[in-house]
Each structure stands twice: as C-alpha cells, then as structure tokens.
C-alpha cells in the first residue's frame, strides 16, 4: 500500500514534470521544413500518391527496413525463446459458425490484404497493414481448423526470401540509382496509377508477405507452446 | 688531540687506579649496607678476595662461543666506556681515548657490554638468564630515558656534546656546576643514575637474594672474575660521566675520587632506603615520572640556555 502511494506520488511528479509539454506547446501551424519539401516535391521525386508511403518506403526507407528487421528479430527471438514445441495438445473443436464463416471470409480477407499492400502508394494502407490483414485471416483459419498445422517451412521460405529480396532491391538502388533503397530503379510511371512510384509497390508487396509470414510465425510459435 | 702510543700506558694507569677505587668502594658500600641493616658485614677488602678466588678457580665449563665471549664483551664495554670518558680535566693524557668521540659515543657504548653479556648469558641456555636479560634490558632502556634527556639537556645548556667542553664550561667554582645552574636537570640525572647503577629500587635484574636469577647465573670462576673486574670499573665509569656532566668534573685525582664517592653514595643511600620495584613497576615509573620531569627539565633548560 505504501509502495502504491509512493508510486502515485512519483507519477504525480512525473505529470508535473511533463506539464511544459502541454502548457508550453504550440502545435504546428505550417508544415515543417522537411514535410514542406515532401509535400512539394514528393509526388515528382518518388511518384507515390500517398505521401506517407513515400516517406516510409523511400525517404525513410532505412527505418522501414529496420522495422522489418525488428519484426524479424522478434520472430526469431520468440522462436528462440520458446524452444521446442511442448508436444501435441487437444483444442476443442471450433463451432459451426466459425467454420462456415472462415470458409466464406478467408479468401476475401486474403484478397483484401493483398489489395492493401498493393495500393499502399496510392491510398491509405501498405505492406504492414496488408500483412496484418493476411495474418488475421490465417489466424481465423487456425481457429477454425484445430488440427491444422501451418507449414513452418513454407513460412520460412516466404519470410526469408521476401526479406532478402527487399535488401536486394535496396542494394539495386545503391548500384543503379541514387542510393540504398532508392525506389527509382524502376520507372516512376504515371502518377496515381497502380504501376507507378518505382519500386514502392514491389517493396510493399515484399513487406506485406514478410509481415504476414512473420506474424503468422509468431502466432504459430505461441500457439504451439501454449 | 689524537692518538699517541704513550696514551696506552696512561690508559693502563688510569684503569689501574679506577679499578682499585672501584674495588674499595664496593667493599665499603657493602659494609655500610650491612651496618644499616644491623649486621656486621664483610671486610672492606672482601671484593679483592672474591676476585682472586674466582680467577684461580679451575672449573672450566662453557656452553659455547658466545657464552665464552660474553664476559669479554662485558669487560670490553666497561673498559671502553671508561676510556672514552675524559677523566681529569685539563690533562690530555688522563683524557684517555676521549678523542675518538663525545658523550654520544659513551652513551651508546654503555650498551656494548650489556648486549654482549646478554648474548653470552643467552647461550648459557638457562631460562632465568633469559628472564634476567629481558628484565634488565627493559629496565635499562626505560631508565635510559632520563639519562638521554639529561645528556641532551646538558648539550643544550653548554651547546656542545664534547664532555671536555662540558666540563670546561663548569670550571670556576661550584656556582658554575650544572648542579647549581640547572638543578632540575641534575635531579633528573640523579634519577637516571639510580637506574644506571642497577641498585635498589632498580635491582630486580640481579635479585641476589632470591633464586639465582639474572645473567650471571651460569657464569662462574674466571668468567665471573672478569665480570667482577668489570663491576668495579663500569660503575666508576658511569659515575665519572655524571661527575663530569653535572658536578664540574675534576682537575686532579683526589677531587675525582671524592666526587666519585659522594655521587656513588647517592645510589647507595637511596638503595638502602627504598625497596625493590617489580620490573613493570619500574618501567612504568620511568615513563610516568621521569619522562614528564625530563620534558619539563628540557623546557627549563631551553629557557636557561636562552
């Protein structure tokens, strides 16, 4: 109890400490120096309609690669941490509703996921979002089919190759264009079209696959270890 | 003042004189001691008889080299101390070998004999010897505190460490004696004298009446003779040192012997009056009383010397 009270006092002090961030803060009225340039020149330079995507995949592409790495490490870490599967265990059968729903929804969900990462440079969304959608579809599948085993081999192939291709595309940028992860290795195409913005759709596809595979991998690992 | 071969002869002469003085004083003192104790006592020439008896005895037993050399060290120490002290003021020849060093030399040479003796006794292997040495050394070093302070005091007062110069500074009548000019220091010195003489109350080392304790336990016959010889020279040497330092020295033999007798008597008088200290008592006594007194005396002397 004393400890909780003490924690409360400390947190109160923390709030007092953080007060200037609220009282002494003025929100942006104009775009920042960097953002201004992105908005002005982004469409021409990168060719993506969705500026957020342009920033994520190209301008701050290294962050994204790192982010993929984080996810990859987490997957590997979880796999490393949980070690061997603790044997088979029974799970109760899913209900009819889930089974039917899954059969009906799964293709749509997967399709939707693919749509999201393919259109990442045009509309809100992208590789991560798409990957998550795909993974959620697979989760549904797993829930519905208690006995199903997802081929971890396949997952590995998808995960590893998509990651490697992503790096290779980045490398191509370094060799063929202005620098590592430069998207202009492919023609920027016509602004606003699906096949445009250079390598962004390709990268987002790879990211989508990799994220999807990794999230599934994580779920798979967790599920198996219980 | 340097070494000349003729000085060896003079040295032998002074040794002869002082040896006899020592023997006689020993006899007289024992006699006085007995009379104070309502006994008849020995004849005054008894020490001569004892000495001769010891020298002619022929029981020859030794415990080893150091045991054998112990008395040699002892007598060398006694003779050395004596010879390093200038005896008669003004007489180069009766200053013996004082050209080799000053009062510091004498002060440290005193230990030469004691240490050698202690070593010899140590090799004797008798436990009581070791106990005696332990007590003796402990008490001597404690008593020496007063002596050292007294000597330093004299050194401060006369600004010299040369005994001859100290005596020179006291010439011209009793008023110039250290005894008069610096009484506190002299009191200290006389306490030191008690300690140096090894008489009661500081005689637990030899403790003659009790079980045969102390360094001479194992020594006998010739060894004892040498030690007795030393006993008649060494105390005289020490007494002469005190005479020189505090009582104006002496310009001729008569004055010297008189002064020796008087100064020596001081230890005898105290000895017969006061009972013996245990050794830890006496050590503590020197630290507790003589040391503070010495410090005061030094301060006073510094004031006197200006």
């Amino acid at each position, binding site marked *: 109890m004393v400890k909780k009270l003490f924690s409360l006092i400390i947190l109160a002090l923390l709030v007092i*400490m953080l007060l200037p961030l609220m009282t002494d803060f003025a929100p942006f009225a104009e775009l920042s120096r960097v953002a201004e340039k992105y908005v002005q020149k982004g469409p021409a330079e990168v060719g993506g309609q969705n500026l957020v995507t342009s920033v994520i995949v190209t301008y701050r592409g290294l962050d994204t690669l790192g982010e993929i790495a984080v996810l990859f490490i987490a997957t590997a870490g979880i796999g*490393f941490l949980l070690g061997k599967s603790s044997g088979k265990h029974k799970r109760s059968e899913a209900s009819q509703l889930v089974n039917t729903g899954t059969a009906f929804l799964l293709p749509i969900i997967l399709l939707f996921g693919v749509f999201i990462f393919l259109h990442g440079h045009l509309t809100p969304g992208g590789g991560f979002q798409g990957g998550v959608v795909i993974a959620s579809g697979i989760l549904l599948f797993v829930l519905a089919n208690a006995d199903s085993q997802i081929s971890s081999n396949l997952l590995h192939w998808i995960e590893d190759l998509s990651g490697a291709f992503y790096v290779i595309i980045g490398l191509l940028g370094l060799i063929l264009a202005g620098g590592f992860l430069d998207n202009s290795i492919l023609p920027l195409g016509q602004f606003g079209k699906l096949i445009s913005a250079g390598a962004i759709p390709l990268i987002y596809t790879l990211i989508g696959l990799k994220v999807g595979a990794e999230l599934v991998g994580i779920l798979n690992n967790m599920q198996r270890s219980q | 003042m340097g070494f000349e071969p003729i000085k060896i002869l003079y040295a032998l002469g002074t040794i002869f004189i002082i040896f006899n003085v020592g023997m006689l004083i020993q006899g007289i003192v024992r006699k006085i001691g007995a009379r104070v104790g309502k006994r008849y006592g020995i004849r005054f020439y008894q020490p001569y008889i004892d000495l001769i008896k010891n020298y002619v005895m022929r029981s020859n037993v030794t415990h080893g080299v150091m045991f054998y050399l112990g008395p040699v060290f002892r007598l060398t120490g006694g003779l050395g101390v004596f010879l390093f002290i200038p005896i008669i003021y003004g007489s180069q020849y009766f200053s013996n070998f004082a050209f080799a060093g000053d009062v510091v030399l004498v002060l*440290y040479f005193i230990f030469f004999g004691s240490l050698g003796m202690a070593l010899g006794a140590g090799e004797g292997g008798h436990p009581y010897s070791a106990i005696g040495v332990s007590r003796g050394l402990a008490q001597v070093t404690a008593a020496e505190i007063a002596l050292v302070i007294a000597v330093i005091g004299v050194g401060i007062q006369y600004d010299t460490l040369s005994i001859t110069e100290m005596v020179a500074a006291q010439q011209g009548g009793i008023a110039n004696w250290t005894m008069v000019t610096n009484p506190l220091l002299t009191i200290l010195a006389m306490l030191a004298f008690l300690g140096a003489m090894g008489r009661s109350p500081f005689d637990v080392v030899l403790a003659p009446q009790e079980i045969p304790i102390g360094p001479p336990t194992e020594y006998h016959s010739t060894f004892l003779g040498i030690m007795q010889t030393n006993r008649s020279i060494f105390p005289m040497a020490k007494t002469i040192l005190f005479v020189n330092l505090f009582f104006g020295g002496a310009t001729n033999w008569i004055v010297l012997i008189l002064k020796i007798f008087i100064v020596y008597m001081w230890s005898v008088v105290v000895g017969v009056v006061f009972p013996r200290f245990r050794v830890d008592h006496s050590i503590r006594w020197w630290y507790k009383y003589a040391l503070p007194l010495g410090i005061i005396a030094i301060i006073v002397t510094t004031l006197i010397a200006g």
Partner: protein
Amino acid sequence: MVSPIYIFIIALGIGFLLSLFDKAGRAVAMTIFYGALLAMAFISGQWLLHLLQGAEAEIITTAGFQPPFSINLKMGLLEAFFTFLINTLGFLAGIYLLPKFKSQKIYGMILFLMLIMGLNGLVMTGDMFNLFVFLEITSIATVSIIAIEKNLKSISAGFKYVIAGGIASAFYLIATIFLYRFTGVLNIAMMAETLNVASSQAVFLSVFILMIAVIVELKPFPANGWALDAYEAVDSGVVAVIASGTSAAMLFVFYKISPLLNNTLLLTAAGIGLATFTFSNLLALKQKNAKRLLGYSSIGQIGLIITAYALLVRAGYARNSEIVMLTTGGLFINHFLAKAGLFWLSGVVEKEKLEEWSTLRNNPILLFAFAVFVIALVGLPPFPGFFAKWQLVMTFANQGLFFWIGLILLGSFLEAIYLFRWLGKVLKSDLKAELKAKISQIFPILIYLLAILIGGGYLSRLINQGTSLSILYLPVLFIVFLFFIDFLPVAIKNTLVILVGSYYTYLIIPQLSGYRVMLGVIFLAGGVLLFIPGYFKRGKRTGFYPLAVMMYVGLAGLLISENTLQFFTSWELMTLGSYFLIIRGKKSEPHALSYMLFSIGGAFVMLFGFGILYYVNGNSMALSSLGNIESMAGIIYALLGIAFLTKMASIGLHIWLPGAYGEAEADVSPMLSAILSKAGMFGLLMLMAAIQTANLGSINLPYVLGWLGAITVFIGNLLAIYQEDAKRLLAYSSVGNLGYILFGLALMSHMGWLTSITYALNHFLFKALLFLAIGGVVYRVKTKNMYEMGGLIKKMPLSFVSVLIGIIALSGVPPLSGFAGKWLTYNAVLEKGWYLQGVIVIIGGLIAFLYCFRLIYAVFLGQLKDKHRQVKEAPVWFLIPQVILIGAIMLFSTYPAFILGPVGKMLNDILPENALIWENLDAYSIYGHWNGFLIMMITGGIFVIVFLWLYFLNRKAQKVKQFNIVYAAERPSRPELTHVGYNFFAHYKKALGSLSQPYVTKFWNTMADIFHSSAGFIRRIYTGDGQTYILHIIIFIVVVYFLTIGG
C-alpha cells in the same frame, strides 16, 4: 573502398537468409555467419585505416536524397573506430559462442548478427528516429539472445531487461517527436544547429528527456538493477557483448546527442555519471558473485566515462578534440577490452564465487590475462586506463575541477579494493577444480589481452605531450621479454637478470646527480645483490622475474624521472611489481591487499597533488617546478607527502607493512624492506628539496612530519618488541627505522638530511642482512615463530654472525655503522632545537635494543629444539650476499668518511651549509666529534686484550651438554619448557598499557566496516523485483529533472 552501407546489407541479407542456409547444413550456415561477421569487421577496419590516413569522413545518404530529407549514415574516424571495435568484438564473441551456436537453434546466430548490426546502426546513423529503430533492434536482439541460456535466472533477467529497455525507449520516442516539432527535422546534426535549448521550458524538457533516456540505457545508479541482474545471469559470451559492445554503442549515442545539451544538462550528466561511478564501486564491495561484480564495475566505468566526457565538453573542449579523445577514449577502450575479456573468462571459469576463480591458476596464460584485465581496470600502467586517468586528472585540474577529481579518485579507490581483493583470492585461495577451456574461448581472450597491451603502449605515446615516456620503454620491453622466457629454469633467468641488472646499473648511475646517486646505488646495485639468493629456488618460479624486474624498473624510473608523468608511471610500476612479489608469500594474500590499497590510495593522493601542481604551474609537468609553486603549495606538498608516507609506512599508514614484509618469501622480504621502502624516502627527499626552496607561508609541513617521524620511531620499535614472528619483528623494526629517515628529512637541515641518508644506507645494509639471515633460518626450520626456534647458533653459525652484526649495526652501538646515525641524530636535534621530538626518537632507538636481543636470543641462543637437531646452515646463496653486506657494514663502520663525505657534498646543492666537517677520518660538528676508525680500533684492541686475558686464564674450558645448567636441583629435559621465548617482553606491555594497543589497525578496520556496511545497506534497493526496477527508473528521471531545474 566498400561502402559502409554494406555492413547493413550483409547483416540483413544474410540474417534473413540464414535459416534457409541452415537447411543446407549447419556448417554452411556457420561458415556464412562467420564470413558475414568478418566482412563487417573488414569493412569498418578498412575505413578506419583509410580515415586514419587523413581521409574525409564519408556521409552515406539513402534513397538518393540529401539529409535532412532522408536518413543519412556517417563514417568518420570515430564511427570507423567504434564500428571496428564492435565488429571485431562481434566476430570474437561469435567465435566464443561457437559451441553454443553449433548446438542450438539457428535463431541464435541470426539474433547475434542482428545485434551486431544494430550496434553498427547506433554508431553510424545520423537520424534521431532511425536511431530509435536501431535502439530497438539492439534491444530486442539483446533481450532475445539472452535466452541462449533458458534457465530461470536468465529468463527473469531478460524480462526485467525488456521492460526497462521499453520504458527508456518510450521516453526516447517522446523526446524525439517533440524535438521534431521544435526543429522540423530529424537529422541530429541539423537539430543541434537549429535548437535553442533555453528557448522554452518544453524544449529544455524534451532535450532532458532525450538525454535521460539515453542515460537510462547506459545504466545509471540507481536505475540499473535490471542491468545488474542481466550481467549476473546472462551467458558470458552474450554479456561480454552487452557490457562492451552495447555500452560502446550507447556511449557513442550519448556522444552524438551531446551537441543538443547545454551546460546545465552536461553538468547533470556528469553528476549522474559520477554518482554511478562512486556508488557502483561502493556497492561492489559487498559483492561475492563474480559476474555481478563485473556488472557493478562495468556500470561504474561507464559512469566515469560519461562524467569525463560531459565535464570536458562543458569546460569548452571540442567534442572530438584530442584531449577528449585521449581521456574518454582511453578510459573507454580500457573498459571495453578488459570487461569483455573478464566476462569471457567468467564463461571459461564457470564459477560464481570470486574465490572459485582460482581455478584459473591451472592455466597460466589465462591467469595472466585475468591479472592484466583486472590491473587495467584499476588503472595501473602500462595499460590504457592509466594514461587516460592521468590525462583526465590533469585536464580536470587544469579546469579547477578538484571536487570532481576527488570523487573520481575515491571511486577508483573503491574499485581497486574489490578488484585487488579478487585478484588476491584468485592468486591464493585453494585450488579445487579443474579448468576446461575450449580453444574457441581462449582465442578471443588472447586477442583482447594483446590488444590491451598494445593499446597501453600506443596511448603512452599519445599522452606524453612532448615529454617522453621512452625512458621506460626499453626496461618494460625487458619485462615483456622475461614473461616470454618464463618457462626457463630459475638459474638461467636469475643469471640473466643479474647480468642485465648490472649493466643497467652501470648505465644509469653515471647519469644521476646529487642524492640520487646514493639512492641509485641502493635501488640498483642493492637490487642486483639481492637477486643472488634467488638461485636457491628450484624449478621455474613462474612469474617472479618479470614482476621483480618491474619493481626495479619502477624504482630506477623514479630516479631518472624529469616530469610528473614519468614519476607517477614509475611509481605505479614499482607498486604493481612489488604487489606481486608480496603476494607470492604463502599467507600473504590479505597483507598484499592491504599493501596495494595503501599504495593505491597513496598514489591517488599523489595524482591529486600532481594535478593541482599542473593547475598552478601553468600546465607544466616538470618535476623541477615543485620548488617554485605560486599558490596552493601547502596542499600540494601535503598531498605528495601523504603519498610518500604511505610507502614509508609512517605511523597511521603503516598497518600494511608488517604483514607484507613478514609473509613475503625469504629473498623478497629483504628486497622490500631494504630497497623498496627507500622509494618513499626518495619521494620525500625530492619533496623536501622542493619545500626547502619554496615559501610555504603559515603551513609548517616539516614540523608535522618531524613529529610524525618521531612517533613512528617510537611506536614502530615498541610494537616490534611484542612480535612473536621473527620476520614481523624485523618488519616493525623497518617501520621504526623509516621513522628515523622521515624525522631526519623533516629536520630540513644539512645535518638532518645527512642523518637521514646515513640511516637509509645503514638500514639498507643491516635490514637486507637480517632479512636474509632470518629468511635462511626460516627456510630451514619452517617456522617464523621465534619461540619455536632456539639454540640455532650451533647449527647455523654463519647466520648467527650475520644477525649479530646486523643487530649491532641496527641498535647503533659503537663501533658499527649504526652509531653514525645515532651520533648525527643528537647533533641534528641539538642544531634544530627539536628537543622533545629528539627525545622520543632516541627513546625509540633505545627500545630497539629489546627486540634486537630478542631476535638473536630466541632464534640462535637458548635451548635447541629436538626437531632442529638435523637442521643445516642456510643455503649458500643466502650466505654470499650476507658476506658482501657484512663487508659493506664493516667498511662503512670503519671508514664512514668515505661515504658520508661525498653524501654531504651531494646535499650541498640543496642545503649549502656543510654541517659536518671531515678531517681525515675525524668528523666534527659544531657540537662534538667522532672518529669511526679509532672507535673501531680501540674497541677491537680492548676486546682482543680482554679475550687473550680470559683465554690465558681459562684455556681448557670444556663444552658441556645442552641441559647441563644450574636449575634449582632439577635437570630439565624438554627444550620447549626451558627456552624462554614466548611473550618475552610481557612486562613492557603491562607497563605501557594502552600505548601498546593497535589503535591504528582498529581505526582502519572501522573505516572498512563503515564502507562495507553502508554498501550492504544501500544495495538493498536492488530488490530483484522487476516492478521496483521500473519504479527506480521513474524516480530517477523525476528526481534528476527536479534537481536539474532546481540546481
């Protein structure tokens, strides 16, 4: 040139594919894995070389846009250096972990590769948010790889780690986004250009949060329980990367964000660093677990580096200026190599408790590595940390940052305590287990061992500021050479050392002038002499020769030093060498420790003094400037004085000495007592020479030293008489004799100094003699307790003669040389007028008679024990130097003029009045005179005459049996009961009562208790509860914030 971006391309590309390669076989995957690590190291290495040759830093832009519009990486000299360190560490740590990688899932390798890549990213990225991404890569990879050991401890430590890391990065993220708001960019350099920290409270707060987040990642006290737990629990190979690699990268991050910080925040960082350094080292005192101890030490070192960096930058040094690089860089590289090495060793040892590391003794090379790493951490030469710390103290002093210096030195001292305690335990505690070291584990350790050795040499060249340390290079090379030939037998090494030592002596002595000649003879010629007994040893005597030579090299270095750096380096070399000599004794571990602690404490005090000297003397390091100090002279002299007094074992600082000298090996004790102790004297001589010419104002330092010397004489000698152990008796006697030397020096007169040098020379002669003789006896009878000996004169007559001569010279009884010292003392005391002190000194000298007698009596006289009836004379190798020493004593006693005359002239440079006049062999002072030659002749003459007299009367004396004594009608039969040896001076103890009590020892014990119990109390904050650790972090942030804005 291969672009640095390939580091990431390789790491990521291979990382992503590694599990696919694994399907082709583990060998394939492992080959590629190590190939990748090697390639990364290669890339950074080639950049390092390239940039070292003066190339321009490379800015790598991504996506074809310039910063701030895209993320940029930088490869400058520092980045190259750090990435090179990290990547080589990665490679070596990878090799270290090879057996684990081989047997475990492929994820281990992937995670490891990602971790190294993340660290590279932290160093190279120039973008604040990208930094966050790499921070998370590092953090997640670390947390994941912690699970390489899947036991409860690792897992729970990992959980605490991930939570704490999560909170730190959360704060980092908050700061980042707000800083983006205030500057409109995410590029750190541009952010620093546009940001005005003082412009608003919110800006200040954002920068503060940024800084504190980075600092929390650097594990500040007290918000570091999570890190400590991880250090303790995590696998050694991994924790080496965390402790060295991650710390390196995080320090670089701190370096990178530091342009954002204003002076207030830099001060805050420095304060946090210092608190961390001090408290970590304090708390480590109570630590018994090796890895956690290393954790405390790591955290402390990082704190020190932060403090050094922040304060230097705050003081106006450019962030990448030479000074900053030398100090923080040196400290960092030292920590980096040593800590990784030690953590790797912990994996080899596989033992938790400190003393169980003694298994390292099974492998001398690993033991050597351990010692080197520990010594490097403490900051002793010739390792980088030493030079860096020196430079740090000098630079801080130059800025007047004395308070900081004080606390840094205190922290360093605490660190030295536990590290040397550990080293001692490793060297001495019982060997219980075998050591199984895999080659994959040894290889990285050896590489870092080599690196730290080279690093020290390299830094010593950088640091010298025009004052060369080259005088020490050749001798140090000889030491290294001796390490290499350590497998040879004693005889060869001993001969080599004696030959080289003689030649070196021959080289050095003519270069010396003034009183240095005298000490040169003692240090070097004496040193060579005392190597002679070494022949008595059989076998290899592993480690003895290099370290003994190190001590002598230090001593010689002191003499030829011209500036404070040379002096201090030599001093530390000497200390280090002597420490290892002392600890060779059978039971000397605690004593060697206490020696080392007093020495290190003293050395730090000296360093402080030199620092102030550097400050007041306008950045001059010349030793000659000691004499003309403008201001603060009193403090400088006092500090240096304390330092020298520790080596002199003056009362109050003496408690290390008896054990150290007493428990050392037979031929080491004389080296220590006769030679090493004069190092303190040399320092004091130098100091006093300076004081002589300086104006001290109201502070009368010599007066204080004079009293100290006098009391030392008295107490040292007094305690000596109570010792039962012969060597301790001699050791306490050394304390007393060093007191004379101190007293003489403090007199500040020609006569006084002459006294002092006479004592020194004499002490060298007789103490070497006594220790050798007693050492020989102890070697034969296998005990040091005097009451267990007795009667040995019949078995070891030559040793007896040595001891006899020794004690006569010691006690100052004429005609031997000791008397010269006594005589000079009287004269000097009278001249100076320090009568009371003089009386105490002389009384102390009288007490010496007691132990002198006891030593010779209890050992050689009295009753021979039954078990010693077969004892032989001491080995001839002990006797040879004794004969030489006896000859020297006799010469010195008979012809003191030949030695003291020139010595007097030597002192004329400093103290012109020639107080002692020599007329042939007669010495005259204004008070008295003395003629050593005549005294010798007269005494000899009388002795011979009396002896002949006795012999004439008593020719046929018969030797009787041992128990043929007059014993109150009893016939004793047991020597044990008849030999009075135990508690010989009980009556003295009884008489003096409290004067004989060991107050000083009690005082230091109480001090130690206070430190340890406060450490025990404070460390309870680390409850082990992850939630408490979270609370600590938040408290830390809040409290530091309010302290920052409040102060």
